């Protein structure tokens, strides 16, 4: 299904983007098409194992992640949308690269050799190499007047299992400022959202999320921009403050800034629990 004049990339959406955060998925695919890339969903992908597999069974976590690696065509990079999936997939890759026993296990499981040529990248890495203003319709800085705080959550950090590779803190500020928005300073950009404790220990997560949202309010931000679909959901569902702040996926706000996808917006923003439409209308973005 190669589209004309577009460069093909393999694409791993992950379970959240495929279901609960479908607006994140749609806006990302849309954005990449505008940038000249065709995201081809990885054929028959499975869950990366999420937080649960490595919590209780390291071997299963490795197998679940490496099945996805075995499915990826080698002639194009594998783009990953979810920071948590990226962590699982890339740590499996690094383990394979360094451990001969793991490679033998992989070959036995998937009946093919592991090829370290496979490039696995988060979409942030991709965007960091592009001047997005060049893609803005009429080169307008549409986000002029918007104050935001960036929320990276914890998964874009590079812990020991990621060999402390380069991380992308600061990228959202750089890109969105270039498109006219004003990043505000705050202390919560890499605070964990609580992930699965939102189910098992909601009373622990609620005050944490409230602290984060209150931080955004205190910074006088109009909205929070998230890097991760899981964070997006937790920040929306666990906030019990009277004052709320709209929370936008990074892929959504870039599409808005570039002036693309006007007919698509409705399907994205109707899925938000905190309605961002009044804010976007006030800025003439919607």
């Amino acid at each position, binding site marked *: 299904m190669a589209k004309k004049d577009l460069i093909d990339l393999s694409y791993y959406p992950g379970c959240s983007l495929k*279901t609960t955060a479908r607006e994140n998925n749609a806006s990302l695919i849309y954005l990449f098409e505008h940038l000249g890339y065709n995201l081809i969903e990885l054929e028959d992908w499975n869950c990366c194992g999420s937080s649960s597999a490595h919590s*209780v069974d390291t071997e299963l976590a490795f197998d*679940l992640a490496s099945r996805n690696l075995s499915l990826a065509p080698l002639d194009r990079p594998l783009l990953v949308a979810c920071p948590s999936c990226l962590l699982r997939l890339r740590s499996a890759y690094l383990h394979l690269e360094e451990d001969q026993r793991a490679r033998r296990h992989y070959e036995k499981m998937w009946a093919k050799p592991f090829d370290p040529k496979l490039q696995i990248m988060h979409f942030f890495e991709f965007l960091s190499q592009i001047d997005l203003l060049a893609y803005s319709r009429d080169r307008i800085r549409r986000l002029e007047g918007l104050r935001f705080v960036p929320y990276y959550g914890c998964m874009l950090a590079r812990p020991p299992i990621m060999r402390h590779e380069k991380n992308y803190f600061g990228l959202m500020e750089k890109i969105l400022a270039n498109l006219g928005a004003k990043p505000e300073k705050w202390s919560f950009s890499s605070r964990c959202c609580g992930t699965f404790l939102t189910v098992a220990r909601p009373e622990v997560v609620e005050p944490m999320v409230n602290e984060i949202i209150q931080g955004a309010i205190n910074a006088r931000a109009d909205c929070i921009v998230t890097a991760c679909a899981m964070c997006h959901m937790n920040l929306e569902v*666990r906030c019990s403050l009277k004052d709320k702040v709209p929370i936008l996926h990074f892929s959504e706000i870039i599409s808005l800034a570039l002036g693309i996808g006007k007919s698509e917006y409705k399907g994205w923003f109707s899925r938000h629990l905190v309605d961002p439409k009044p804010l976007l209308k006030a800025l003439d973005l919607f």
Partner: protein
Amino acid sequence: MNPKPNTIPAEIVNLNQTDSGFAGEVTRRSGVEINKCWHCQSCAGGCPFVRAMDYPPNRVIRMVQLGLRKEALESSGIWICVGCNTCSIQCPNCIDIAAVNDALRQMAMAEGVVVAEPNILNFHQAVLQSIQRHGRTHKLEVMLRYKLKKHDWFSDMAVGMKMFAKRKLELLPSKSKNIAEIRKLFDQKSTA
């Protein structure tokens, strides 16, 4: 003047019964050199969940160093840890504390000790069952299985309804096709 009675206060750990092989076992399983920890407590200071834990992360590491097997494996901290890696990024010695917690959790399960946070284990199992059935996680099913086991249908209804109204909880799962291949990964596992 009478000398003070030589009793051990309850909050002081008893070092009379320690397991000298424990630290080695955890090191082998986690691949992490536990003895690099010098207890600066950066991890404890940075952990966003430390208030919900019985022991802060470095104290669990101390227990491992001292061979306090039962205390470490039965601590709630190892289950509360979500693996956000805030601690391991702040650790001056690059100790992968989340990986240590993975190892301790799995040892706790293998040894059948008291799981301090049964609801969290229940949640992980619900997720893995969903992956085993569909190859992917189905959030609605995970929630229903979790609640079924917890015998709790009514907490969090408001959040569930809000998500449902916004179509964020799908009725049907997204599925992998070669489900037989995925189920094979779960065969002979005790975790799911």
